[in-house]
């Protein structure tokens, strides 16, 4: 569909000579001859099938991982799960972007916008994680995670029970349910699969004189 000169209202160019001299090559004047690509129905269906397969794969992997961990009584590090799930999601995204959103056939400028956006997100995520994940590596004082503290907001449940308002919200909820007789405490089910703390090394040292009352953070 490249700039169809035969269409009924051709000559919209207002008599301006669209010669290469006035519109130098490389400048983006939008009437480029790249035209509009019509993606074939087969491609679209194919991409949909690939996307559905990948969705199945990511769910299957998550199940499989838990199953293997239980079967062989091994601990699979948490990052395996996260990395696989996010990699598959990225591949799916690539398919959607390249074919459904047609970036593959489109003006490269739009691809650049997309890529720069991803870079920006990467900086945002990366630097924030560097800060909050690497505290106390050099300076032990900084290892002290911010104390759970008192903004003093009363929860709904706390008003119903006599639990102090600075108790964890989960604890207040539990006490409230106990008081209403809606809940009988039971042992929490063991978590199958990767253990929670594996992906989270304890960073830094605790200063002498500080009691480690905050779960080692």
């Amino acid at each position, binding site marked *: 569909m490249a*700039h169809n000169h035969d*269409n*009924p*209202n*051709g000559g*919209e160019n207002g008599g301006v000579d669209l010669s290469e001299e006035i519109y130098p090559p490389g400048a983006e004047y*939008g*009437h480029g001859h790249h035209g509009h690509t*019509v993606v074939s*129905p087969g491609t*679209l*269906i194919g*991409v949909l099938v690939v*996307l*559905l397969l990948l969705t199945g794969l*990511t769910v299957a992997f*998550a199940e499989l991982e*838990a199953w293997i961990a239980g079967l062989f009584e091994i601990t699979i590090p*948490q990052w395996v*799960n*996260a990395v696989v*799930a*996010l990699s598959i*999601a990225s591949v*799916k*995204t690539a398919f*959607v972007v390249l074919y*459904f*959103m047609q970036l593959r056939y*489109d*003006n490269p400028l*739009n691809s650049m*916008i*997309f890529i720069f*956006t*991803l870079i*920006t*997100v990467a900086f945002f*995520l990366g630097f*924030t*994680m560097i800060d*909050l*994940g690497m505290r106390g590596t050099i300076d032990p004082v900084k290892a002290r*995670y911010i104390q759970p503290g008192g903004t003093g*907001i*009363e929860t*709904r*449940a706390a008003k119903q029970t006599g639990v102090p308002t600075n108790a964890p*919200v*989960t604890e207040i909820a*539990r006490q*409230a*349910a106990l008081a209403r007789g*809606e809940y009988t405490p039971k042992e929490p089910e063991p*978590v*199958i*699969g990767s253990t*929670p*703390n594996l*992906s989270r090394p304890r960073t830094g040292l605790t200063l002498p004189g500080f009691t480690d009352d905050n779960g080692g953070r």
Partner: protein
Amino acid sequence: MTTVPSGHSTIRDASEVPYHQRYRAAEHFRDREHEFDATKMGVWLFLATEILLFSGMFVGYGVLRMLHPEAFIAGSGHLDVHWGLINTVVLLASSYTVAAAVRCAQVDDQAGLRRNVMLTFIGGLVFILIKLIFEYRVKWAEGKLPGIFYSYPGAVSEYEPLWWGLYWGATGIHATHVIVGMALFVWIYLRAKKKHFGPGHYTAVEGVGLYWHIVDIVWIFLFPLLYLIH
């Protein structure tokens, strides 16, 4: 009687020419192609802002999961993977139908265009209904609510309310985008009925379609992050 000089030197009544061929670009553009290109670039820039908007949720997720992995794993266990999977399939399929709708507009298949736009709308509707009926309603009734509204007694981790804060926040903002997209598809459908779109002019279909794909992509990431981690 208004006439249109055509490239084939046949003169037709202007009202016989479909809108998408009569359509003239706004006067500060050189031609329709120029306008289409500029608009598409604008849409891509808008999509960039959407990605960055959601990036806030993802950064919050990443950092807080790093700090409290046990809460996230416990919280994720409360979600039903089946509904998440069904919703993923629904959204992927609707992404396909909208891509097909753009194709139909490009090849002047008016019936196909209307059908695909309608299917996409239905996809969004199914997604929202599943979310409301089988997920939000259940979680709400069980007290699995964010922050201080949390009243579910069986928490494993102290920080589970935080997980629910992220869950409601991320899926809520995403669902809002789905609803906005559905409204846009109603608009597209009404215009498609008037045969506004075709090979000459289908900018709106293309733009709304791109938006819908981004909403889909956000869900492609939310699904494993919320439902599949353990």
